[in-house]
């Protein structure tokens, strides 16, 4: 126990004395959190429309005015020439073209097949999907309006209809920040923890102090615990700041228990730091360690469900995710914060994560060799 105390004392001194690392460890994650939560959004704003109305009927005008009224769209141009419109699309000046051909309004009135062309700039696929969905929903709305007016005219015909209503639970205002902030917070904690721990032991190898340590009677587990605890503190600190920001600056209600989040964070950090220390013991240079950590980091993040839904992944991808600690923590922290999930709700995932952390820590201890 006393031995661990001396290692801790040394590690903390080294961390806090490194003036150029301190802002990177403590300030940068917080700044990134505050800035980047705003970036991670699929919320639609300002879709630039180019309208080619060769019809000029009341129907086309009504549809256009619906687009004008919508906060999601800005009508950049209205014109007759599809050629010019396509040019603008090509230059990325507009996001979509709405093209009403001559005879459109007539067709609607005559109840014939009337169509409107929607030409979407799909240079950015994910945005294009959104533009399209929003445009379609405006047209759909208009259809419904038509429908009800038609229904009232052809009364009493037995039309069978399934109607639907929907409510969005847990986030009725459909805000992105409550969803993204916990995820990005996890990401930042992970990056800091994984990188610092991966570099730590190998750094001592590089500067040569590891030999001096290895020639002492220190136990392997003592050494690694001494390395682990400071990083857990750093992780806890950052988590705390992140949660405070979430609650008081971003006004995200934290529905579940903060203590539970910390419990999960503790087990999660053990896993991540175990992986980091394991990498550190297996490499010869900091550069190498950094690379390997980075490699796993990217895969972990991309598959974690931070930006994309994990359920849409193929079966084998989801199986792979069983080995992805980031996926567990992101899932759990979102559940606790946004849905108020309790201990029993997350028990299964937490158990797996605990086993994972034990495995990684024993790996790290096992692979750290005091003797070559």
């Amino acid at each position, binding site marked *: 126990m006393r031995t661990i105390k001396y290692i801790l*004392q040394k590690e903390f001194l080294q961390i806090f004395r490194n003036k150029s690392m301190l802002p990177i460890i403590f300030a940068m994650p917080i700044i990134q959190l505050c800035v980047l939560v705003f970036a991670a959004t699929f919320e639609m704003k300002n879709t630039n429309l180019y309208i080619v109305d060769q019809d000029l009927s009341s129907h086309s005008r009504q549809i256009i005015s619906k687009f004008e009224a919508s906060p999601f769209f800005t009508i950049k141009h209205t014109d007759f020439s599809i050629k010019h419109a396509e040019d603008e699309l090509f230059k990325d000046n507009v996001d979509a073209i709405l093209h009403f051909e001559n005879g459109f309004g007539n067709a609607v009135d005559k109840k014939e097949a009337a169509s409107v062309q929607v030409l979407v700039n799909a240079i950015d696929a994910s945005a294009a999907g959104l533009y399209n969905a929003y445009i379609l929903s405006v047209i759909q709305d208009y259809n419904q309006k038509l429908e009800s007016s038609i229904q009232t005219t052809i009364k009493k015909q037995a039309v069978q209809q399934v109607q639907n209503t929907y409510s969005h639970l847990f986030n009725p205002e459909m805000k992105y920040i409550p969803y993204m902030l916990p995820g990005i917070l996890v990401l930042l904690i992970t990056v800091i923890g994984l990188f610092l721990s991966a570099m730590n032991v190998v750094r001592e190898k590089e500067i040569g102090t590891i030999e001096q340590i290895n020639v002492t009677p220190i136990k392997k587990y003592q050494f690694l615990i001494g390395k682990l605890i400071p990083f857990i503190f750093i992780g806890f600190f950052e988590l705390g700041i992140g949660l405070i920001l979430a609650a008081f600056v971003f006004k995200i209600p934290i529905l579940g228990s903060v203590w539970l989040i910390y419990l999960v964070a503790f087990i999660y950090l053990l896993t991540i730091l175990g992986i980091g220390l394991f990498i550190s013991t297996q490499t010869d240079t900091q550069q190498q360690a950094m690379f390997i950590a980075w490699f796993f980091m990217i895969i972990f993040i991309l598959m974690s469900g931070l930006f994309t839904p994990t359920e849409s992944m193929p079966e084998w991808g989801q199986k792979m995710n069983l080995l992805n600690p980031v996926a567990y923590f992101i899932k759990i922290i979102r559940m606790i914060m946004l849905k108020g999930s309790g201990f029993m709700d997350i028990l299964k995932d937490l158990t797996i994560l605990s086993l994972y952390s034990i495995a990684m820590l024993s790996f790290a201890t096992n692979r750290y060799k005091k003797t070559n």
Partner: protein
Amino acid sequence: MNTDKKVISVRNLYKRFGSFTANDDLSFDVYKGEIFGFLGANGAGKTTAMKILCGLSYPTSGEIMVAGLDVYKQREELKKNIGYMSQKFSLYEDLTVFENIRFYAGIYGMSSKEIKTKADELLQKLGLVHARNKRIGELPLGWKQKLAFSVAIFHNPGIVFLDEPTGGVDPVTRRQFWDLIYEASRAGITVFVTTHYMDEAEYCDRISIMVDGRIEALDTPEALKKHFKAKDMDEVFLQLARKSNYQE
């Protein structure tokens, strides 16, 4: 020199890395309290052998006892009884003099009170009291090395291993460094030192000269000079090194 008390006993030590044999059938004894010099050109296998004796590296085969302990089985027990100063400078540059002492002494299990009093004594002796709270990185190399040595014997080990301790320092500092070694030796610490400075060889009680992984000669400096009819150790070494098939 007390020749009946062996503190290091090596029999038929081999260390191979693939097809390369770094230590080829080494056998020697080191007695309590002596200063044992381990000489050889770069790449002769000195550091490899020393690391095996310290328990930092596994031998391929051989019987090795250090401080009465088997380096295979009692490795961790052994580590309590030895001190080591590696070739690579190994104090933490970003910690102060005292913090370094406290850290290393701490992991050898010394109490904080003991550490404090002993550290003050040490700094007094080295004339480094004013540097107590200076970071190691700010000190000149000679001081660092003296400190590294003092840290290596701070916990009073029976044996201290020094791997080219005086590399890159000026002759005056080297002389002072050897004064420290003598002092430790007088205090009963056995000193095992590798070097390639031939004048330093003269300071040792006994020396062994390694060429290409083998021990080519082992005796007191006087006896060696006599045997090779040489006026100094330099000449002894050159005569032996000529036999080497390893040409740089």
